[in-house]
């Protein structure tokens, strides 16, 4: 049995965001998913809103978009639905890749067959999986295009890690990482990267072998940083922490979209295994140091900072962003890189200003509600 890759229109995109459900009393995670979802189900709303593995998490996802602004409009509507209903229950919602001080052992598995199965299989790793990520889908017209795009996109994975990083604190401590969340994912046996297959039929051969050996049952069992999603006809980038605002989330999706258009139309390079030889190193430094990380460009065999690499990439994307109508999104990315401020540094600055971690979460939650305007206002002060 082969996996059919559904056709998607080129450069379509969609995002999924995992969000924290918080108590407004102490700003710890709270088991509110059941009540919140029950309330949300009663009304007609944009997007899709679902439970996640533990009861303090909720996942929102958009439909398929080509236009970045339309996506932002939908994300705004979903956010308002979730926040509005959460308020009726005196719960708060926030972005961010990890809750700064929750204890993993206090989390409870959301009562659903698949989640119980995962808990049974992975033990404490399942509860430690109470971390919050953004998944970006980019459409590809065929399986072969998807495999090409995926290999080419791997070079840029550190960009996404550093730009989205928002999990510096974990279990009450500063981890020294900008994104501590990805360290949790490394522990899973099928994490990492897709093997270096040449096209969709070779991928199918690999998948069949893994399934015959009973290592996996479906594509869902691969926790790769980027994986093909044949049912949707997309590739799915899974390394991003959930940003602190939807504006940032939409901008990251638009960045991926413009990058995909550049890679598909300009065909700057051929996929090479060299990218994967330096992959783990680049990924680690991006998690650890964020935008200031060292980056090894496998193509030119040179070292630079990640910041420099993003600033060199942006001009290549401008014509594509113009064609797609997402120039504003690239501006959001450029501002972040120019100022050297990502969400992780925002969180650290809040903590350093004498706030407790509870206060940091409260402000994080306020930011999720108030959006990017509040960030600009805060940094202006």
């Amino acid at each position, binding site marked *: 049995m082969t996996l059919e890759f559904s056709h998607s229109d080129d450069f379509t995109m969609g995002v999924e965001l995992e969000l924290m459900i918080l*108590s*407004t*009393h*102490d*700003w*710890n995670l*709270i*088991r*509110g998913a*059941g*009540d*919140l979802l*029950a*309330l949300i189900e*009663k009304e007609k709303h944009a997007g899709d809103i679902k439970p996640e593995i533990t009861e303090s998490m909720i996942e929102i996802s958009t439909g398929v978009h080509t236009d970045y602004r339309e996506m932002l409009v939908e994300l705004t509507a979903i956010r308002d639905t979730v926040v509005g*209903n959460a*308020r*009726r*229950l*005196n*719960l708060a919602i926030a972005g961010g890749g990890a809750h700064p001080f929750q204890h993993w052992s206090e989390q*409870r598995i959301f009562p659903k067959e698949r989640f119980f199965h995962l808990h049974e299989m992975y033990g404490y790793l399942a509860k430690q999986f109470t971390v919050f990520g953004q998944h970006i889908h980019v459409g590809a017209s065929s399986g072969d295009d998807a495999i090409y795009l995926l290999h080419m996109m791997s070079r840029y994975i550190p960009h996404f890690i550093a730009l989205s990083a928002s999990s510096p604190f974990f279990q009450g401590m500063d981890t020294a990482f900008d994104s501590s969340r990805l360290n949790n994912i490394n522990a899973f046996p099928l994490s990492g990267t897709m093997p270096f297959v040449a096209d969709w039929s070779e991928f199918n051969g690999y998948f069949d072998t893994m399934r015959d050996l009973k290592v996996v049952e479906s594509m869902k069992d691969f926790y790769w940083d980027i994986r093909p999603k044949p049912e949707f006809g997309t590739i799915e980038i899974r390394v991003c922490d959930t940003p602190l605002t939807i504006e940032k989330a939409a901008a990251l999706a638009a960045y991926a979209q413009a990058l995909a258009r550049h890679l598909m139309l300009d065909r700057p390079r051929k996929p090479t295994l060299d990218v994967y030889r330096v992959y783990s190193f680049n990924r680690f430094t991006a998690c650890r140091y964020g935008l200031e990380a060292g980056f090894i460009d496998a193509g030119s065999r040179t070292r630079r900072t990640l910041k420099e690499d993003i600033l060199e990439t942006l001009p290549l994307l401008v014509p594509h962003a113009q064609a797609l109508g997402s120039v504003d999104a690239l501006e959001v990315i450029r501002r972040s890189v120019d100022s050297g401020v990502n969400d992780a540094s925002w969180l650290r600055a809040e903590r350093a200003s*004498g*706030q*407790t971690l*509870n*206060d940091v979460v*409260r402000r994080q939650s306020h930011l999720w509600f108030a959006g990017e305007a509040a960030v600009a206002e805060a940094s202006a002060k």
Partner: protein
Amino acid sequence: MDDIGFLPSFPLVAGNTMLVGAILLCGLAAGQVFVRVFRLPRITGFVAAGLLLGPGVLGILDQSILGDLSIFVDISLGLILFELGRRLDFRWLTHDRWLLASSVAESLLSFLFVYGTLRLFDIAPIYAGTAAAIAMATSPAVVIMIVHDQRAKGPLTERLLALTALNNVFAFLLIALLFGFVHLEYRANWPRTLLHPLYLIVGSAGLGFVAFIVARTLGRWLGKREDLQFGMLLGVIVGTVGCAISFKLSVLLALLAFGVFVKNLDRMHDVTAVEFGPSGQFFMVMLFVITGAGLRPAELAAAGAVGAAFVLTRMAGKLAGIGLFAPLSGITRRKAMLLGTGMVPMSAIAVVMVQGASALYPEFGAGLSSIVLSAVVILELVGPLATQWALRRAGEAEPLPRGNA
């Protein structure tokens, strides 16, 4: 003989310190027995230990000792009411207007049901009214303690705490107003009738506000250090309790108001979230044992039918009010019923308020006590169980560790 003057003389005089130690140990032991043997909440064990040691049964803790130990009760109540006040978020009331509606409904219905029932038993309106007002309040001590004990977290727990804070405020306001009628009943002059309720309400809320300003100022000065703020808050809480007593104000309203102001007016969040945790444990054990010692099992038999009717109609009022309105807040009818059940524990604090009236008019106090106290006995024992059951069924309590209750 003077040579052995350094030895204690017999029989030994049990000092209060020794008693406090004994109370703590007895309470803890009874708590564990109740958990392990009967699978009941620890609190019920504390209360039972008090009942056993108190004047009602063994008489080890007599009335004068209980008077000496009342400082522990005051401090414990201060901690509890402050914490409860911090759970009342005005923003929540504006985001979910049905929350306030369901609180008013359950308070009003439990008042009306109890009042009607007591009138059927031919109890005079002023007594029936005050007793029904007492019936409105859910016990903050039991609810907070069970929530801590069960490590309960979740939307139902939040709602339970907010509704408890609200119905205590309503009960207090109503009782304060009824004091006016009590004065009238005893032919006091008009100024007294009007000024006493006013003094209680405005004075207590004002004291809470002063406490808030002091805590915020000190909090800002100390910085966000949880260890430092812990001591500061404890100091302000105990000081406020003392002031409330000295000024003949309400400990309940003053401390509740203090908590509410900190939650809603501390815009810069200068006062940090402090958990009283394990050190609070000491006060809780003392509180419940002493409460138990204050109960009179004899009352139970004496009141009989009135007491039982009081308890049942009160519960019906709470369940009806919550059952009718809480689903409009978006919670399921099942959860609404659990929420109503969680609110069953009755506040012994209200009884303390009534003692204020007894001091002025002993006859009135005695009359009221005979009606209310039997219900207090029943609900002190059954209430914790009801709340614990509700939180567990709602799935918001910590799951039980294997092989332990």
